[in-house]
């Protein structure tokens, strides 16, 4: 675990607040006015939590000072000391920030996006400010499913920062306004941002809940907006944009020790991203889940003082790709709910249905499926099977986009969490006999697909005979 230093600007903090600070906190007089002193104060810490009264500092300059001290500035947690006016909130806020800083795994040059705090006029061109750096996502190419056709990041990104190019994804960091939506949309978890890692978010929530020693509410807020004052028992967890939260993110804090959870839309924080609609959809499904499992009061519209104790904590791998089914199943167990199916448009879990009459078993759907929820396989007796596991489905809908028989309803996806299906695991959705090459014996194509082609070709039996007797290789050599 990384060693975290806590550096607090001492000015104006009363004795009650000081008593709440961890023993290894470094208190510095006038720190806000002499941030360059950070280098001398961090005492070899690898990560840093900084508590300042005046947050109108130069980001570029602060980052340079932090970097010179050997600390990655993208992992520094900066807190506004005004949040420390209530002594009982000090320990949970600091514990959360320290845990998140400790979980920071570092960033590389691929994650650092230079930004300028202001646009210039041509007249002031020669006084361009120093750039500061914000955390941008990066693609782990070994986990990316673009080669199979996946383009979730391309369709999700509101800034068109991703382009799909011949089986790979090109990412334009310059166009990216890091909002994190690609991070949660990526079905394989190939897109990572150091600003919002599953471990970091989990650690922060757990630390807040533990340090508070009383029921806490967790409110997700975005890093660009202004968070208004909140009740004493609610604590903010910052994400790049609340539009990135799917329903499982909105539920997971309840499994990590929080008694209630909320998320602030852009309109509530003055952020200009305008992602309210996306959050509404996720929240709507989370509320359906809450209603079905009987914990609606834990997802209040307004941040009101808490009345319920937390649920029993469940160690879930929340906030990572494909974690939603586990989160929902754990929530059902924690609330002893007996509901079997919860459906709605914001569900991050999907259920596929195949119409055996119209599906030709072309396997386009299983070939593009980035998580392997849909799979095809040949059995020993040359039967082609199409199987599905809802526990792996992220409802990305890419199977629908490629299905050539979609107009005949060969495949359908319902956004729903089906607990029985989750327990059941992988099931066979369809199967078809295959034609085999009369010369070499390898499978050519499913019979259903050839029947469909025959239907489209009409009476051209000669062509059909040619297609169905030999495989491509043998046709080429005949």
């Amino acid at each position, binding site marked *: 675990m990384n060693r975290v230093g806590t550096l607090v600007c001492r000015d104006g903090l009363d004795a009650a607040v000081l008593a709440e600070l961890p023993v290894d906190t470094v208190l510095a007089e006038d720190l806000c006015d002499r941030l360059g002193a950070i280098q001398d104060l961090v005492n070899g810490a690898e990560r840093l939590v900084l508590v300042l009264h005046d947050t*109108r*500092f*130069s980001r*570029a*300059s602060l*980052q*340079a*000072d932090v*970097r*010179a001290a*050997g600390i*990655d*500035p*993208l992992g520094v947690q900066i807190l506004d000391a005004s949040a420390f006016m209530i002594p009982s909130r000090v320990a949970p806020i600091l514990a959360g920030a320290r845990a998140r800083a400790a979980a920071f795994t570092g*960033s*590389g*040059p*691929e994650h*650092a*996006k*230079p*930004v*300028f*705090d*202001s*646009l*210039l*006029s*041509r007249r*002031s*061109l*020669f*006084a*361009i*400010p*120093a*750039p500061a*750096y914000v955390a941008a996502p990066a693609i782990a190419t070994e986990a990316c499913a673009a080669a199979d056709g996946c383009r979730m990041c391309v369709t999700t990104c509101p800034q068109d920062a991703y382009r799909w190019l011949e089986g790979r994804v090109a990412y334009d*960091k*310059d166009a990216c306004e890091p909002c994190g939506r690609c991070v949660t949309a990526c079905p394989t978890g190939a897109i990572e941002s150091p600003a919002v890692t599953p471990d970091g978010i989990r650690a922060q929530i757990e630390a807040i809940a533990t340090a508070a020693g009383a029921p806490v509410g967790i409110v997700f807020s975005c890093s660009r907006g202004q968070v208004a004052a909140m009740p004493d028992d609610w604590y903010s967890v910052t994400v790049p944009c609340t539009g990135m939260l799917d329903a499982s993110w909105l539920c997971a804090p309840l499994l990590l020790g929080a008694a209630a959870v909320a998320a602030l839309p852009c309109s509530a924080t003055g952020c200009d991203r305008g992602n309210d609609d996306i959050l509404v959809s996720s929240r709507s499904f989370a509320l359906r889940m809450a209603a079905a499992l009987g914990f609606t009061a834990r997802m209040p519209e307004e941040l009101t003082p808490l009345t319920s104790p937390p649920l029993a904590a469940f160690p879930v791998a929340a906030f990572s790709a494909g974690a939603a089914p586990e989160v929902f199943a754990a929530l059902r167990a924690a609330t002893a709910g007996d509901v079997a199916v919860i459906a709605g448009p914001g569900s991050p879990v999907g259920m596929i249905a195949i119409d055996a009459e119209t599906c030709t078993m072309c396997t386009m759907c299983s070939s593009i499926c980035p998580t392997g929820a849909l799979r095809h396989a040949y059995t020993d007796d040359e039967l082609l099977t199409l199987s599905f596991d809802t526990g792996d489905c992220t409802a990305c809908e890419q199977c629908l986009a490629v299905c050539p028989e979609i107009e005949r309803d060969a495949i359908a996806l319902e956004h729903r969490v089906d607990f029985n299906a989750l327990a059941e695991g992988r099931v066979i959705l369809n199967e078809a006999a295959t034609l085999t090459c009369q010369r070499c014996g390898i499978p050519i194509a499913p019979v259903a697909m050839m029947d469909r082609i025959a239907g489209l070709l009409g009476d051209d039996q000669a062509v059909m005979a040619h297609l169905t007797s030999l495989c491509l290789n043998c046709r080429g050599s005949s």
Partner: protein
Amino acid sequence: MVETVDWAGVSVTRQGLYRFFGGALLSPVPGLREALCGAVEYLDGLGLEHFPFLAEWRDLRTVLETAAGPDLNTEYVRLFASGVDGALCPPTESWYLAEAKGGGIATLVSDVEQAYREWGFSAANSAEPPDHASTELELMSALCAREAEAWRSGVTPEVAHCLHAEDRFLRTHLAVWFPHFADRVAAVDAASFYTAVVRTANAFVLHEVDLVRSLVRQVEASP
């Protein structure tokens, strides 16, 4: 509070860094390590803490200062030149991109030379081909020198012109293949002097792509 920066000074720093890495990737001569140590000391005083590749730079400094290591010549030949089974990681653009770009090695090298000619440069008649890492880095160094001059003279279109040229060369050539080269060096040899040089150079080049593009945006967007 907004801190302004002497961008001419930044260009000079970048010019120095390009030259440093270009020189480090030339075939080694006696005293190279000492010369690089001296350059590191000089560049350290130019405000590198403002850039996110500082961590890699510090690692490189440690490698330079602490490890005597094997003979640089042997290491260079093994990795970048002939070696026993041919070069393990050729430091030339064409080796990585000729096939992908189509047209073969000659076409690609010709493209690179064309980029040099646009700015009145030509690759010196040396052992290194025009698409060698050291030559491409040297071109970027020269472009940064012109950019610094433009900042100092206060001619906005000239600054924009230089930045566009850097952006184009990075995005068309250097920054396209250098990460592949760095990956290959890291895979072949995780702990050599040249691994540290290439890793740091790669971090610098990646940052250059972002910095130059954002500066271009600033210049273009200025009302």
